[in-house]
C-alpha cells in the first residue's frame, strides 16, 4: 500500500487558554489571541513561521494580525474537518506550517434561554422548543427503544467523564465531584432521558493547534504527534431537519444517521491498517452521555445495541481497555461554543500521546481516537493520531 499522504503531517503545538463559565474582560478575539500566542509558545515558533491560517470566518483578519502573509487560508471553523483540511493542505504542498485556533467569549448572555448556538431559528424546529439536548434525546430515546439501553448506562458514562474532569486541575468543574451514576440519575430532568448531569456545560475559552510537515516536525520543540487517519460523515445541516436515527442517504441502514461516524471510522482505520482494538485512548465527543455509547457502536468497538453494556464494569475508565474523554470533555472540562470544544478533543489526544498529562494519563498510550458531533446534529467526524508515524 502506498504511503498515505496524511502520514507525513504532524501536530507540533497544542494549547488551551483559561476556560471558565464566563471569562470576564474577554471577547472572542482576545481569547483567540491568547490561544494563538499559547500555541506558538508550545511549538517554539513565531508568527513568521506560519504560512497557513485556519481560524474560522476570521482567518484573513488573523493573517493580517499575525503579519504572516502570503499565507494559505481556510474559512472553516468546524473542528476535526478543519484539522484534516489543514493537514491535507500541508500534505499537498499548499502550506507548510498551519495554525488552527478558535475562541469564544461574551457570546452567551441570555442565560434564561439555552445557548444561542443550540437553537437556530429554522422554521420547522423553532416553534417546537427544540434545542441540542432535545435533538440528541430524540436519538437516544430511539436507541433505548431498539436495544433496551438504560438510563443507568447513560449515567455511568456521565459519571466517568465528570470524574475525569473532577481530578483535572484546569477543568472548569475541577474538584466538583466525585460523582456516582446515582448522582447523575438524581439530578433534575432536562430533556428525557437526559438529566442535567447527562448534558454538557456551556462555557468560554480558546484553543489552538499547529500542524506542519513531518520533516519540519522532527526539528521542533515538542515530540510530534502524527496523523494516522480521519473521516467525516454528514447527513445535512444541523438542527433544521428531524434528527431521525434511521435517516439514510446513498447507503443503506447500516450507514443511517444513527450510525453517523461509522463510514468515517472505517475510512480512518483503513488509512493506517489499525482496528478499534489498537486504540489506547478514546477522546470521544460528549455533548450528552448517550453519545459515547453510540460512538462505541458506530466506530466498531462493539456491536449494535451493545454499547450500554460495553460502558459498564470499568472498561471506559483510565486503566480500562477503552478510556474515554480523559480531561472531562464538554461535561466538565469546557464547552466554549461552536468550535473550541471540537478542537479540544484533538488537543487532549495530543496531550495523551505526548505523555505527562497531570491527571488521567493513559500509561503507554500510542494510538488515540477523537471525535466530534453526533446524529442529533446530523454529523460525526473522527481522527486517529499516533505517537509514532504510520
Amino acid at each position, binding site marked *: 500500500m502506498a504511503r498515505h499522504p496524511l502520514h507525513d503531517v504532524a501536530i507540533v503545538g497544542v494549547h488551551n487558554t483559561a476556560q471558565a463559565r464566563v471569562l470576564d474582560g474577554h471577547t472572542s478575539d482576545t481569547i483567540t489571541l491568547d490561544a494563538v500566542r499559547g500555541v506558538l509558545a508550545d511549538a517554539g515558533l513565531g508568527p513568521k513561521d506560519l504560512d497557513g491560517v485556519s481560524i474560522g470566518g476570521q482567518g484573513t483578519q488573523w493573517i493580517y494580525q499575525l503579519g504572516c502573509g502570503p499565507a494559505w487560508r481556510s474559512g472553516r471553523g468546524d473542528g476535526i474537518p478543519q484539522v484534516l483540511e489543514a493537514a491535507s493542505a500541508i500534505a499537498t504542498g499548499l502550506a507548510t506550517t498551519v495554525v488552527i485556533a478558535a475562541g469564544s467569549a461574551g457570546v452567551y448572555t441570555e442565560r434564561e434561554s439555552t445557548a444561542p448556538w443550540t437553537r437556530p431559528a429554522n422554521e420547522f424546529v423553532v416553534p417546537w*422548543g427544540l434545542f441540542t439536548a432535545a435533538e440528541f434525546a430524540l436519538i437516544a430515546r430511539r436507541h433505548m427503544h431498539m436495544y433496551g439501553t438504560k438510563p443507568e448506562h447513560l449515567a455511568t458514562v456521565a459519571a466517568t467523564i465528570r470524574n475525569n474532569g473532577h481530578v483535572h486541575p484546569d477543568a472548569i468543574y475541577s474538584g466538583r465531584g466525585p460523582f456516582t451514576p446515582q448522582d447523575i440519575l438524581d439530578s433534575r430532568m432536562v*430533556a428525557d432521558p437526559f438529566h442535567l448531569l447527562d448534558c454538557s456545560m456551556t462555557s468560554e475559552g480558546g484553543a489552538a493547534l499547529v500542524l506542519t510537515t513531518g520533516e519540519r516536525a522532527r526539528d521542533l520543540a515538542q515530540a510530534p504527534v502524527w496523523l494516522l487517519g480521519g473521516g467525516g460523515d454528514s447527513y445535512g445541516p444541523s438542527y433544521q431537519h428531524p434528527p431521525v436515527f434511521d435517516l439514510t442517504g446513498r447507503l443503506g441502514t447500516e450507514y443511517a444517521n444513527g450510525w453517523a461516524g461509522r463510514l468515517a471510522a472505517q475510512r480512518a482505520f483503513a488509512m493506517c491498517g489499525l482496528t478499534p482494538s489498537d486504540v489506547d485512548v478514546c477522546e470521544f465527543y460528549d455533548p450528552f452521555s448517550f453519545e459515547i455509547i453510540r460512538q462505541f457502536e458506530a466506530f466498531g468497538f462493539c456491536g449494535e445495541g451493545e454499547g450500554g453494556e460495553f460502558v459498564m464494569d470499568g472498561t471506559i475508565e483510565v486503566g480500562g481497555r477503552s478510556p474515554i474523554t480523559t480531561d472531562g470533555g464538554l461535561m466538565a472540562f469546557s464547552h466554549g461554543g461552536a468550535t473550541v470544544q471540537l478542537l479540544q478533543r484533538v488537543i487532549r489526544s495530543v496531550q495523551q500521546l505526548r505523555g505527562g498529562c497531570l491527571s488521567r494519563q493513559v500509561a503507554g498510550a500510542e494510538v488515540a481516537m477523537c471525535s466530534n458531533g453526533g446524529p442529533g446534529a446530523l454529523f460525526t467526524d473522527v481522527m486517529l493520531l499516533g505517537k509514532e508515524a504510520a
Partner: protein
Amino acid sequence: MTAGGPSREWSLAEGELDAQGAGIPLPRPTVVSKPYWDGCRRGELLFQRCRACSATVFNPAPACRQCLSSDLAWERSAGVGSVYSWTVVHRPQTPAFTVPYAVAIVDLDEGYQMMSNVIGCRPDDVAIGMRVRVEFRAIDDEITLPYFVPVVAPGAVTNP
C-alpha cells in the same frame, strides 16, 4: 383557540400537555414553505410528492431528495401517524415556552416524518408507536401550528 379547519372540540384534564401560547419563536415562511404554512392556517396538513418518482418530500423543498426532480405537487395528509421518537423537555429553549412540553418526531401514514409537539395527554403517556393525529392551533393571525394529540380509539379518528 382552534384554527379555521374543522377539529374535535376537546378540553384538557389536569396535568395534560397543552399547546404553547403567544410569544414563542414562530416560523418565518419562505417562498418554498409558504404553501405549507398557508395550509396549516386552513386546517390542512400538506406535504410534497414527487411527480417523477412518487417519493414523499418533507420538510418542504425545491426538489425531490430521491431523484432531484423539481416536479413536486402538494398533497393533503390525513394527519394521522405514529410517534417515532420523543422527549419531554423540562428546561425550556427560551422562557417563552411553558414546561413540560413533549417534542416528537411523527411518522405520518403517507410515509414521511415531521417534528411537532404531542399535547392532550400526560407526559408519562407519550411513547414510541403511540397513534396520533394532527390538531391545529392558531398562534397568531399568520401562523397556525400543527400539534399532535393521541388517537384515543379507532372510532375517534376524524380527518381534519
